[in-house]
Every structure is written in structure tokens, then in C-alpha cells.
């Protein structure tokens, strides 16, 4: 993996040169484009509806209210269920935790077996997995429904956990495979000579040495699963809808007048978890997505 080390542009110039003003000016304008939607979300969600109708979406609220947040979290209705997004939040958490643990556990073992315990055909399965990650999910949607039905877990939380584990497997396996193959092979050989077995080496040597990559995988999976919509729609029922699906329902089903402030508060609430992870994890996030993306 290529790490972001030192910039390598042209020679440094004096601070207030025309070039620098142009450069920073351009960058600041670009950043406005990125920040603007976030700004608009926060502003809209803290205004009352009368102010939204009169004012413009970029202006800060004259009178700050957190009522839309309360409503989005605890009161917004879909049908007779008026408990807002909170239900979706807890569903997402309940889906997220087992999915993340299971998918990382399976993929790390896969990566380890692929690097250190190659068996006949192991590379073929890995190739299928990587090609599989490019197959549009729509192709495997209905077969997946049948598989879950046969297993008797269709519509349950565990069904969705299994789906996330399966479809997260290619990228995570790749991630772990690449990492484990970068570790010095002597370590593994020495442990084998000492008589350590498959699991012994994995838990005593590989896992302790690979904490950073586990963190990267964690970030990748938490944001990926939290943001999922398609699987949530197809493989769950209203009781177990994840937050994204519920958000789309709340915003797109209206009783009476559309409450834009509540909608924006709901949108922000749903985006909050990945945003917090993003800002906490910082460079690890960058590393995670780059590692997930650049193959080989």
C-alpha cells in the first residue's frame, strides 16, 4: 500500500504569492461545495417550519429550536408506529454488532488460511470471491431469498447478518490476505516448528500482530453496513428495518404537510454514526478505503 508521505509538487514558493492565493482560493471554494449540504442540513433542522417557508435555506436560524430533532428521533410516524427513528437506530445497532463481528472473524480466518495454509483450489475460491464482488447484488438477490428461506432465517435479524457476512467477505478477505502476506513468513515457520497448530498460530501470533488491519476492517464494515439500504429493504420487515430504510420511509411518507426540518434532522441523525466514526478514525479511514479499493 502506498502511504501518504511527503508532498512532491513544485518547489515551495513565498507565502503570499499570486500562485498561493489562487491555490488556496480554489481549494476553499471547492471545500464550500463539500460543506454546503452539511451546513444546510444543520440550519434547516434547527428552524421552525414558518421560518423555513419565509427564509432561505442557507441562513442560520433566527430562533433555534431542537423540536425537529426530538420529533425525528422519537415521534415521527410510519403508519400507526410513531416512535420515530429511534427504533431504526436500535435495529441498525442490533444488525451491526453481530454482522461486523461475524464478517471480520470469517474474513480474517479466510485471509490467514489463504496465505499460510494454502490447499488445492484455495486460490480458485479466492478468485471467484473477488469476481463475485463485482457481480451486481441484484443478480444474487432472489437466490439469497431462497437460501435464507431454506435455512429458516428469512426476515430475521440473523438472516440479514448472514447476508452482510457473505457480501462483505470478498473485500475483507482481500484486505486480510494482503496484510497477512506482508508479515514475515519466518514467524509462521518458527511457530510451526514449535508445534503450534492452525488456531494456535492464528490467535497467538497473527491476531496480535494485526490489530491495525482489524481496525481498518472495523471502520470499513461499520460504515458499510450502517449505510446499507438494499439488503435492509429486501431482507427485513418493518419491525427490524435498519435506520436508512426507516429514514427513507419517514421522509417519503407524509401525513399532511411535509416537515422539512424534521426530515433534515432525521437525515442528519442517520448520517451521524458514520460521520463520528469518520472524524474519530481520521487517517485510518483513508487507509481503509484505499486498501479496500486498490487491489493486489
Amino acid at each position, binding site marked *: 500500500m502506498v502511504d501518504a508521505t511527503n508532498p512532491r509538487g513544485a518547489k515551495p514558493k513565498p507565502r503570499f504569492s499570486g500562485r498561493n492565493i489562487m491555490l488556496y482560493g480554489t481549494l476553499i471554494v471547492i471545500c464550500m461545495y463539500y460543506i454546503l449540504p452539511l451546513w444546510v442540513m444543520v440550519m434547516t433542522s434547527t428552524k421552525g417550519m414558518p421560518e423555513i417557508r419565509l427564509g432561505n435555506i442557507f441562513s442560520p436560524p433566527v430562533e433555534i429550536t431542537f423540536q425537529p430533532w426530538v420529533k425525528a428521533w422519537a415521534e415521527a410516524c410510519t403508519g400507526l408506529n410513531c416512535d420515530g427513528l429511534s427504533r431504526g437506530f436500535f435495529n441498525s445497532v442490533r444488525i451491526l454488532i453481530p454482522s461486523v463481528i461475524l464478517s471480520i472473524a470469517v474474513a480474517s480466518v479466510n485471509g490467514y488460511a489463504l496465505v499460510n495454509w494454502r490447499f488445492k483450489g484455495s486460490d480458485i475460491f479466492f478468485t*471467484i470471491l473477488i469476481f463475485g464482488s463485482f*457481480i451486481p447484488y441484484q443478480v444474487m438477490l*432472489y437466490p439469497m431469498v431462497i437460501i435464507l428461506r431454506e435455512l429458516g432465517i428469512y426476515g430475521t435479524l440473523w438472516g440479514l447478518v448472514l447476508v452482510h457476512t457473505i457480501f462483505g467477505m470478498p473485500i475483507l478477505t482481500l484486505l486480510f490476505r494482503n496484510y497477512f502476506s506482508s508479515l514475515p513468513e519466518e514467524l509462521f515457520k518458527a511457530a510451526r516448528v514449535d508445534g503450534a497448530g492452525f488456531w494456535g498460530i492464528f490467535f497467538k501470533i497473527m491476531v496480535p500482530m494485526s490489530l491495525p488491519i482489524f481496525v481498518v476492517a472495523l471502520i470499513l464494515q461499520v460504515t458499510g453496513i450502517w449505510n446499507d439500504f438494499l439488503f435492509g429493504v429486501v431482507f427485513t420487515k418493518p419491525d427490524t428495518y435498519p435506520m436508512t430504510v426507516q429514514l427513507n420511509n419517514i421522509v417519503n411518507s407524509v401525513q399532511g404537510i411535509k416537515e422539512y426540518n424534521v426530515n433534515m434532522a432525521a437525515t442528519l441523525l442517520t448520517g451521524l454514526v458514520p460521520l463520528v466514526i469518520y472524524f474519530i478514525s481520521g487517517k485510518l479511514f483513508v487507509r481503509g478505503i484505499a486498501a479496500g479499493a486498490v487491489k493486489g
Partner: protein
Amino acid sequence: MSETKPLRLLRNVNAKLAAIPMVLTALVVFVGGTVWTVFYSFTDSKLLPKMKFVGFAQYDRLWHNSRWLISIENLAILGTLSLVLTISLGFILAVLMDQKIRFEDTFRSIMLFPFALSFIVTGLVWQWILNPDFGIQSVIRSIGWTTFEFNPLNNPSLVLYGLLIAGLWQGTGFVMCLMLAGLRGIDEDIWKAARVDGIPTWKTYIFVVIPMMRPVFITTLVIAAAGVIKLYDLVVAQTSGGPGNASQVPAMYVYDYMFQAQNLGQGFAASTMMLVTVLIVLIPWAYLEFGSKKHG
């Protein structure tokens, strides 16, 4: 022979057991599911899969359906524009970021944060900003330009650009990071040599750096192309495919015909076509990738 075979199978038995989830996923879900879907796309399955073969009838109908044709056309337009724009903007941003600027981390955090958000959140935010009665159009009208028209989401000929603005917002930061990693991977000596030869910086970028970054460009291209083909959540949240059918995409057609129209055969045929589209992108890439490895 009968004695050695079980022994060979039993070797590394733990590793083989541990690889069972991967093998099952690869064979049952990815290969099995895909074959199953392609197989049933030649049947007249309605609500439930049925073995009543109709040859290419589903495909014939698909390619005469105006919504499908619009979806494919949209995919081509969105695909081309988003690939050209994400890659060129991503590269330009990466070059700007590579100019030994201060606050590089801050700039990068700002450009990348939308990537942590789901397409549902992205779609809903931009739906709000582009809302003609409250968003950009109304703001500009309220400051005096009363005939200003900017209402892409309700204009069939502009709606794709509305999606594009949102899609670029979400994805360019990510491409920028990939490109930046690519730029930093280029040897310092190249820059030194270029400076010694008196080649202007912009010329060095175009004629030296870009050709050297070919692998990064190709990877980005493949990832972005596979992503565009799968595009679903963003459209569902931002436009629901409207106005009319103007922003329909293939993934929505698949979902609607599989589940809403109760015509599984038609849905399978459409998803098979999505698979073919992915293969058209993937096969040349795999050929380049593995072909070049053989040679060097």
C-alpha cells in the same frame, strides 16, 4: 491409492474446515446464485420460480420496453459523465493537494467526509437543496434575479445532472485520495529529472506523471464503473426514478419487476443484462491485469 487419499484430505484439516464459509460463499452464493438467476431468466416465472421455458422471450420483451431502454441510456450517460468527471476532478484535486499546502489534513477531511455517508442521506440532502420552492432556485430568486431557473429534479432533461451533482459530492473525495496516493508513489527522481530538463510542471503532470499512474487510473475506473452499474439507493432517495421515467436506472427495473410486477422471469433477465454489463467492463480489465503479469 485408497490409503493415501483420505490422508491427503485430512492434512491441514483445521485450515480446510476454517475455509468452509469461504468455499460455500464462493460456490453456493456467487457461482450458484448467478447460474440460478441466469437459468431462470429463460423461464416464464411470475410470482414464484417455475420451470416453464420460454427461450429468449423475456429478453425480447426487455429490449422492447421503453423504461428499460431509458434506464440503459441513463446508465450510459451517467456512467460516462461520472467516470470522466470523478477521474478528472479527482486528479485535479489530488494535484492541488500535492502542492505542499498547509492544512492538508483539514482539506482532505472536508473533501472525503461525504464518502462516509450513505447514498440515502446524500440523495435526501440534495433533494432538499435542489427543491425549487426552498432551495438554490428560491434563494437566488429572492435576492433579485426573479426569472432564475434551476430545478433539475423536476425537469426530465436535467434530472440526471441533479443526480450527478449529488453523486460527485459523495464520491470525488474518495477518488482524490486514491489519486493522491498514486501521486505520492511516484519517485522523487522523476520530478528532479524533469526540473533539471526545464520541463514545466503542467507538462510533467500530463506527459510523465499520468502515464506512470496508469494502474491507479484503471483501478479507479473499474471501481467507479462497477459502482455506477449498481446505482440504486441514490436514485430511490433523490428522485424515485422521476420525473416520469427520466432518471430510471437498471437496478430499479430489476427490483420493480421482480417484486412489484410479480414477474420474476423479467427481473432475472434484466439482472442478467446488468451482469453482462459488468462483464463488459471487467473482462478487458482482467485481461490487461493478468495478461500483463504473465509478460512481466
